[in-house]
């Protein structure tokens, strides 16, 4: 994995910011979020061309070959802009899962297409319970070296309805394995779920003896899943921190110009103190996300601890910042036309995507106890 220099990272961030400013303003988000696929293929291709989709895919597989630090940087911009895309599903979760499984054949087969955006991949790792531990898997596989059939169901599959390829965790008589399933496979049924956050796409998938290719690996499979989830959590933390920072900045701008009682409302302590408290939260979330990214990149001992911290700190901060901003705006944010509720919806969704804040707080203290 390479690391960009600070200057290169700033340039990367600027270019993403510029692209999203041009192609992903509020009106574009509102249009895209009401489409069936929930993403804009043109923008998706531009992101792929820019190297964003393949950011953490090795250079020899067509990716940019950088790591969590650069990913987190990009995701702050993604969060601020409320980008609708399968980036997290395909370019992060699925890509890192393939990286982690260290099966060169499968990686060579899938990663280049993931990196150039032509193949959208995602991972099916949990069932109805939405429990992101090994026990949450509710797909089982039967077969032998050459032929495997999957049965059962998976849910909360990010952009499952847009995927060309699914990476599916399934239990076998030998323990857990990962499988590759084509989206068109017989016996596979993918249903989009109606999400409260319209910028999000989730699917439920049922498997009725679906033919699948087993990904052989030297690693314990759930370890690979955890590696993939950890970088996904860091990316999500970046999205949350960037979005929270954006919410606060926009609200503060409004508070400077909205006049009531002959004064800008931001001159009232009620508003000013809410903003000050939120600044502490948003700055802390940025610190948490960046620190987790740095720890993952450096492979420090406390990386998992840092990821847990970022997971709950950023989730809680985005929710509270988006929620408080509605209160600070007042009536205007109670209208559909105002963007505040879009952020609050995203914040509530992000806070549940891969497990709750309580789950990660518990994981955090377990790591501290260890």
């Amino acid at each position, binding site marked *: 994995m390479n690391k960009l220099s600070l200057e290169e990272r700033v340039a990367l961030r600027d270019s993403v910011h510029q692209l999203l400013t041009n192609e992903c303003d509020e009106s574009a988000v509102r249009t895209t979020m009401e489409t069936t696929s929930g993403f804009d293929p043109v923008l998706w291709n531009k992101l792929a061309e820019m190297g964003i989709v393949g950011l953490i895919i090795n250079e020899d597989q067509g990716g940019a070959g950088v790591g969590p630090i650069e990913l987190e940087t990009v995701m702050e911009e993604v969060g601020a802009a409320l980008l609708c895309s399968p980036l997290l599903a395909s370019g992060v979760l699925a890509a890192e899962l393939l990286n982690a499984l260290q099966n060169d054949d499968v990686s060579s087969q899938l990663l280049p297409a993931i990196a150039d955006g032509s193949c959208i991949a995602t991972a099916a790792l949990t069932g109805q319970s939405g429990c992101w531990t090994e026990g949450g898997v509710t797909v089982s596989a039967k077969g032998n070296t050459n032929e495997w059939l999957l049965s059962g169901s998976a849910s909360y599959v990010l952009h499952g309805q847009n995927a060309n390829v699914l990476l599916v965790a399934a239990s076998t008589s030998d323990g857990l394995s990962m499988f590759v399933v084509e989206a068109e496979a017989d016996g596979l049924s993918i249903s989009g779920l109606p999400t409260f956050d319209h910028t999000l796409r989730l699917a439920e998938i049922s498997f009725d003896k679906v033919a699948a290719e087993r990904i052989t690996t030297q690693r314990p499979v759930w370890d690979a899943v955890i590696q993939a989830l950890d970088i996904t959590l860091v990316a999500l933390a970046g999205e949350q921190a960037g979005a929270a920072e954006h919410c606060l900045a926009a609200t503060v701008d409004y508070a400077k110009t909205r*006049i009531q009682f002959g004064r800008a409302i931001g001159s009232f302590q009620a508003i000013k103190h809410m903003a000050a408290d939120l600044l502490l939260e948003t700055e802390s979330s940025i610190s948490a996300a960046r620190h987790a990214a740095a720890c993952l990149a450096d492979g420090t001992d406390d990386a998992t601890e840092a990821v847990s911290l970022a997971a709950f700190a950023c989730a809680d901060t985005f929710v509270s910042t988006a929620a408080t901003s*509605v209160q600070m705006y007042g009536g205007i*944010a109670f209208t559909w036309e105002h963007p505040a509720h879009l952020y609050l919806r995203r914040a509530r969704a992000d806070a549940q995507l891969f497990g709750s804040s309580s789950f990660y707080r518990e994981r955090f203290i377990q790591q501290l106890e260890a």
Partner: protein
Amino acid sequence: MDTNNKIADEELRAQVRSWLGENWTQAKAASLKQHQPLWGASDELKSWLAEVVSARWAAPRWPTEWFGRDLSNKQAKIIEAEFAAVRAPGTGQDRTNLWANTLLAGGTEVLKSKLIGPLLQGEVNMCLLYSEPNAGSDLAGIRTRADRQEDHYVVNGQKVWTSGAMTADYGMLIARTDWDVPKHQGISYFYCPMKQEGIEVRPLRQITNESQFNEVFITDALIPAENLLGNFNQGWQMLQTALAYERLIMGEGARGPRSGGNKKAKNVEVLIALAREAGVLEQPKLRQDIAQMIAYKKLNALNGARGKADISQGASSSLMSLGKLAMSRILHEEARLRTEILGPGSLFEGSDYSDAENANFLTFQAYLTSIGGGTDQIQRNIIGERVLGLPKEPEVDKKIPFREVRAS
């Protein structure tokens, strides 16, 4: 005197009971139970109200020239009790009919003669035209203008957060009538006819994806001069009267269970049931949070009951001003808990996901309490100043001509 009153009380009770016995037939009761339209009264209700009004039961505390009986509060309560006993609607409008009370308090003879009867009879639909995009917390900052021309006023401006504007015949409107005096001194209060060309009503889509409110665009709309309530340029005082009626009515409605909390409120059981169903009721932290949330609800109900007991009839209670702030916390916290109970199940919307739908709806709807009708922040100012007697902030725009007041 005590003896005289007692006889009158019993006579009155007998009178109303007998009248109800004759007129409140089972058929009427049945016809009124169903088909209550969202806005405006049904024909059956209107017809019943007309009977109540003509028998002078609708507003017994009011003077006899305005459909009343000049009765004491105590005796009016007797009538209300008899109506309540048979579940007949229509009495007590001298307490609960915001529109008629405001009109009686400030209307011209012409307007009162024209509208008080129809208002009591449910013949007239009404709405409120107070808030504006730039006058929310600061209602005295309104910029809708009304200019006198001969025997009417010409109105231009925009109002927002109006419910019922689509069906309303009149709106109670505040508009600026003098721009060269300080903000509170140049406002007038009107009954504005809504069915006219100059009034355009547009539904306002809310974050809940409902449209409970409207925006009202007013362009050269006309108001007859006799539709002024209170004095010209003294609309702020008239508004305070109307707001006081409104708070009284809302306060009674919002106070929750009448008993101090002896009965377990239904939504309490719902939350515990929800957690049980989701299999998380045994989680110790969640139990603490649910207990605390239910406690907030019970304490608010107890405060309401105590406030009701403490205050003399009609007076506003300091405990009442706390209810809105308390409800705001309760609703936001209930939404948070519903979300926590559902976990990832809260990600969805639509009729197949009614628990999620409830959690998400409440998450957004809670702002109607924490923002609507004065934000929590304004409410804390009110409690601090009016209840605790803390001094007001310096008001930079209070004494200067409105023309010079800074606006967004």
